[in-house]
């Protein structure tokens, strides 16, 4: 199902209204220094009132059956508000991994809880190198009889890793990288929070010591699943980045209009004006790239993998440029702790590097283009 333009506008304004109310700057600042780094009551309201966790999940699993286009609108708004919530890890990383695995039993077991907002989830792939390439995975899974498995190894950079109820883990078997589901209460699992550049996105290091796990999808299918998940996750992240970049531009423009120096608004100086125009160019490209990728994902177009790589690269750069120039336009106040500009700067850099950074996604793009 695809919502038309007016339905998308309506979705955007209801999510924005919700986040202006529930996730103003004070709330973000309070949450980024607490544990868990989100407000379960607000998450429950997002599920009950706006049905956000299930928006892009199939109806048969209790979702509303929309796609990446609609989810993209929510992620743009979430990125814009720096919303501290299990949205990205649960809905983009974990739910998309379950769907990509094509495992009906696992979907039926986990997705209804996710859709209802009862279950939060995440995806653990990277280890200490930070690489999301399944070929780099060293965590191992061995059969434990009766179709059960046991996991050993360590995962890092796991988004919401200390709080997620369900953890999907890529681990190696004799057949190759495979996807497993682990309950966070499982014995042998320890989770410690990592200190993060971007305090609004919690990350953890997980240690698996013979942790009971369930195989999701076929054994050895981890590489194929991850290729699909990374495309979808990059597209989702790109939407978040585009939303954050747009917010930085708006903040800069508002400031440049009212801040006077040398007897005139700084926005009347061509140097500042051009800086803002450059930001606008980046933001327009970012929105176009992320929304096109989402559209192609929903159309199951063969152009999606390329579009996803373009969106990730384009939005990563746009957000970084916008976050940097936002501080520059604000001058001295822009690099104080009290001003929100650094929160966006931190998020921009962190998102740019989350899946490996420019060198990695440039090669991914060239690879997809057959170059």
């Amino acid at each position: 199902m695809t919502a038309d333009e007016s339905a998308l506008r309506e979705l955007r304004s209801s999510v924005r209204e919700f986040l202006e109310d529930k996730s103003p700057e004070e709330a973000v600042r309070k949450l980024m220094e607490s544990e868990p780094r989100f407000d379960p009551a607000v998450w429950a309201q997002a599920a009950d009132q706006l049905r956000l966790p299930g928006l892009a999940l199939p109806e048969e699993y209790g979702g509303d059956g929309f796609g990446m286009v609609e989810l993209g609108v929510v992620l743009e708004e979430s990125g814009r508000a720096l919303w501290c919530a299990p949205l990205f890890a649960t809905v983009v990383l974990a739910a998309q991994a379950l769907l990509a695995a094509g495992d009906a039993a696992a979907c039926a077991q986990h997705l209804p809880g996710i859709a209802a907002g009862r279950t939060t989830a995440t995806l653990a792939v990277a280890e200490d190198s930070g690489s999301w390439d399944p070929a780099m995975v060293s965590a191992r899974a061995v059969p434990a009889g009766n179709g059960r498995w046991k996991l050993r190894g360590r995962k890092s950079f796991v988004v919401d890793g200390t709080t997620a109820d369900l953890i999907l883990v890529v681990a190696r078997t004799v057949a190759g990288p495979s996807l497993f589901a682990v309950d966070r209460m499982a014995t042998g699992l320890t989770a410690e929070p990592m200190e993060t550049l971007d305090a609004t996105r919690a990350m953890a290091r997980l240690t698996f010591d013979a942790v009971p796990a369930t195989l999701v999808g076929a054994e050895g299918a981890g590489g194929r699943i991850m290729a699909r998940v990374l495309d979808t996750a990059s597209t989702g992240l790109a939407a978040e980045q585009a939303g954050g970049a747009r917010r930085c531009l708006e903040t800069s423009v508002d400031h440049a209009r009212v801040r006077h120096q040398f007897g005139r608004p700084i926005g009347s100086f061509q140097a500042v004006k051009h800086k803002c125009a450059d930001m606008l160019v980046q933001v327009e490209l970012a929105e176009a790239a992320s929304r096109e990728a989402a559209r192609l994902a929903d159309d199951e177009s063969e152009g999606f993998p390329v579009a996803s790589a373009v969106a990730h690269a384009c939005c990563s750069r746009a957000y970084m440029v916008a976050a940097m120039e936002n501080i520059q336009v604000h001058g001295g106040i822009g690099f104080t702790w009290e001003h929100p500009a650094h929160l966006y700067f931190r998020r921009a850099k962190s998102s740019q590097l989350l899946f490996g950074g420019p060198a990695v996604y440039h090669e991914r793009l060239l690879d997809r283009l057959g170059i």
Partner: protein
Amino acid sequence: MRQDMQDFAAEVRRFLDAHVAKTPDRTALTWGEGDDSMAYFSSLPPEEEREQVRRAREWQRIRHENGFGWITGPQEYGGRGLTPVHDLLYDAIESEYDVADTGVLGVVGLGMIGPTILAHAQSPVKDRWLPAMYRGDAIACQLFSEPGAGSDLASVATRAVRGSGGEWVLNGQKVWTSVAQHSQIGLALTRTNPEAPKHRGITAFLVPMDAPGVEVRPLRQMTGGADFNEVFLTDVRVPDDHRLGEVDGGWTVALTTLMNERATVGSEGAGPVAAALSPDRLSALMRATWTWDDRALRARLAELLVDALATEHLNARALRKLRSGVSPGAEMSVSKLMYGQNLTRAAHFVTDALGPRAIADTGQWGTYAWTELLLATPALRILGGTEEIMKNILAERVLGLPKEPATTAAKEVRP
């Protein structure tokens, strides 16, 4: 898509299908085969250029006969009376077809000067020239820029003074005039009141290009070609009914033209230039030059393609807006800025990959030919409004930032 837009699009396709073939894919190629020209500006020999003008006029006549000659124009002058959105949609669909290049007629004449004549000219001029222009019979050029008046167009110095018979006598020099050598008429900005503040002393005239005293000289560019001209006006007599707008009120006329100039942004991807941004073509070039695994070049190639593909997405988004009957917002201006930057980066990427093969011609296919594009790229940051002016427009009109404080002269013209 809205129903009326859908009907219009279908009608356009029926017309085009009946008259022309679809555009061949210029991005697909076999290395070493076919035309390797990468010229951005046409530098044709005079005979071929005349033939190109003839074909442009012929296609315009066919468009006109089928109701697509002037989609936004009023019916009394042979127009269709539809919206600019219909016009843009027509262009978008036509770009899929292999039609004659009508740039010589369209970019300046039909896109900018026609609407200005309609808005400001006196009846005899409208009756005489508008139908002729949109039928493809008359080509128009824009006699605005001068050696001393580029981005600051209000500084024009070409003088127009009243002659004894009530006609006007023009003297001065214009520059950067596209298609002047093929034009029958030119829209000139002249200074009629040197005492008034600069915006207030300007008058606009439609000058018949065959009038005695009009001399067109080709202006050679850094590419070596001559797409532009200098136009010298020496005691050129123009009747008063060829005046547009009020005496000393020419700035309003100029603004109409400039507004239309901004709406006539070129669409990306046409012609051999599409090849410059084609992943297949660039990939083939890296193989042919043995730079395939050069990490620094690969990173630059990826950056370049990200921008080129994201700009395509931006254009696709603008097009979808058009199809549902919505005017695009900032997309068109952003696209124009990116167009120049993308081609510039592509030209430098390729020539850097070619190395010495870009500084002297070895005769090898697809190598030195790229210098044609390279040498055209500096112009892309200047033509049709410099990059700086375009950024001012984005900042002021899209983002709502305050204007630069007015100069003394501009302050005086404020009401």
